[in-house]
């Protein structure tokens, strides 16, 4: 700012108006502050919460192990569910009536029964089908194995969570695919692209803009649904672990607080990740030049671009009149 020129205001009669008074904002801010202070005070000074216990066990190694398993269940089941969901959504839009029907029945069944019931059934798999085998349908078997030796409670929990989640995600993916303008498919077809390429290169990337926000929502929901895997029973996740510790010490409340704190922390991290994913898949959809920070090979237009954009361009074709 050493250049005195830059201090000269280009608008000679710039308006310096007082803003419209907004007393409502100040009043509401005060009310909210007072309520928040009361709530925090009520939490901190209430000895029933046993903040000393919360602080001691917040970083307990068992708690960390629980977080690990919960994260593994969440990430694993979401990954499997996403792959399954895309398959189901594509089947739902297929020309093949058998595919459409299979997808419909799958979604109908898994959305129509409670996840807790499904998890209990997965837990009973070894009882219902003690041996699983591979072979020709209704024909000879190649080999068979004992169910409970091969599929552990963790895998049963993961299968149960992901199969259920896939049904919900499939509907989200289908909505996303349907949101892409049919003109996109036609343009790609006209270029000679095959259907599978069109889906992967043109339609899915655009559908992601619609798919990502509700999928982030589903991931956060899944994080907490993992607390139901006790139905299998799988007993090493965050919720079960903290609950068991609380019961052992006859202090359930501080361990509920510990679980809540960690679920909140993980959710916050997931929300940040979702924000960046949304930005990435939103590239090309904002008209502001330079928008979409994560867009590949993005470059802010320089002054020259702006001059050209303003119309005084040397574009060879813009000087021709019809």
């Amino acid at each position: 700012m050493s250049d005195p020129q830059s201090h000269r205001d280009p608008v000679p009669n710039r308006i310096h108006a007082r803003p419209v008074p907004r007393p409502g904002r100040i009043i509401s801010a005060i009310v909210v502050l007072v309520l928040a202070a009361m709530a925090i005070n009520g939490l901190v000074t209430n000895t029933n919460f046993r903040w000393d216990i919360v602080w001691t066990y917040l970083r307990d190694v068992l708690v960390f192990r629980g977080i690990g398993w919960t994260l593994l269940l969440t990430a694993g089941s979401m990954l499997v569910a996403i792959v399954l969901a895309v398959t189901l959504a594509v089947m739902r839009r297929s020309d093949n009536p058998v595919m459409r029907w299979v997808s419909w029945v799958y979604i109908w069944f898994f959305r129509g029964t409670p996840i807790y019931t499904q998890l209990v059934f997965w837990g009973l798999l070894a009882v219902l089908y003690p041996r699983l085998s591979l072979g020709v349908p209704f024909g000879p078997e190649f080999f068979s194995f004992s169910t409970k030796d091969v599929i552990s409670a963790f895998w049963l929990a993961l299968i149960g969570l992901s199969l259920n989640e896939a049904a919900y995600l499939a509907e989200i993916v289908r909505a996303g695919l349907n949101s892409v303008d049919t003109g996109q498919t036609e343009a790609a077809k006209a270029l000679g692209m095959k259907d599978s390429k069109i889906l992967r290169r043109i339609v899915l990337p655009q559908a992601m803009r619609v798919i990502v926000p509700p999928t982030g929502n589903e991931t956060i929901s899944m994080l907490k649904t993992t607390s139901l895997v006790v139905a299998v029973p799988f007993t090493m996740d965050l919720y079960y672990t903290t609950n068991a510790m609380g019961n052992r010490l006859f202090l359930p409340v501080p361990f509920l607080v510990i679980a809540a704190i960690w679920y909140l922390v993980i959710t916050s991290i997931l929300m940040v990740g979702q924000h960046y994913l949304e930005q990435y898949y939103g590239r090309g959809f904002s008209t502001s030049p330079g928008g979409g920070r994560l867009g590949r090979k993005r470059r802010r237009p320089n002054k020259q671009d702006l001059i050209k954009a303003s119309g005084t361009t040397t574009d060879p074709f813009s000087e021709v009149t019809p």
Partner: protein
Amino acid sequence: MTTPNVPAQPAGTQPAGSAASARSAATAQRPMVEIRELHKEFGSLHVLKGVDLTVTRGSVTVILGPSGSGKSTLLRCINELEDITGGSVVVDGELMGYRRDDGGTVHRLHPKVIAKQRERIGMVFQRFHLFPHMTALENVMEAPVQVRGLSKAAARTRALELLDRVGLSDRVDHYPAQLSGGQQQRVAIARALAMDPELMLFDEPTSALDPELVGEVLAVMKDLARDGMTMIVVTHEIGFAREVADHVVFMDEGVIVEEGGPQQVLDAPREQRTKDFLAHVL
């Protein structure tokens, strides 16, 4: 299709008896598009009612006609975006979408074969339909890389050439949403050209543009026509038709009412329906 990359040349410019053998000469004389008795129904709606049209190699055909007369449908039948109901479309000697066996039975072609057939036909849409999640450069590179299997580097060089040709070398890294309508349509033309088509279809390429942007797109199209590209253009730009077209077709209610040279159809139409239509648009 034996010679997919024969550069389109205006009919008659092929030097007779040159090194290009008899087969090449025959290819040059064969019409680029032959449409016979084409019918198209959408359910119970009969949209095309027996269209016959021949487009010679290297020529520019302009199709005129009132809204709903079936112009877009005709173009979309040429590159199989619509399944035809009856008749035949032959592009460069190859029946589109179907195969006739020795017994005369007609078989629908596999979608992969149809995709292959579309490769040599470029299409430009009224509403551009650029891929919004890709930059101008990526839009132009997409088909050569994904369909032709060209290397990224080679596709990039070619795409930059094409974008330069349509006057957009300073916009290659812009996303479609950051381009004006005219610029988007020029990218769309470059994208179609990247597949080295023998035939270009334009469906009202300037109808969605502000008047001051129409000229830049028409200029690119004139440039293409000068280079000998075979083009079928649906447009209401009578000035363009007069200047560039070799052949003008007037359609109404699913049939070709009148066709001929631009002077004949535009200045001395024989049919009353043509006269009425021209009185409206001129």
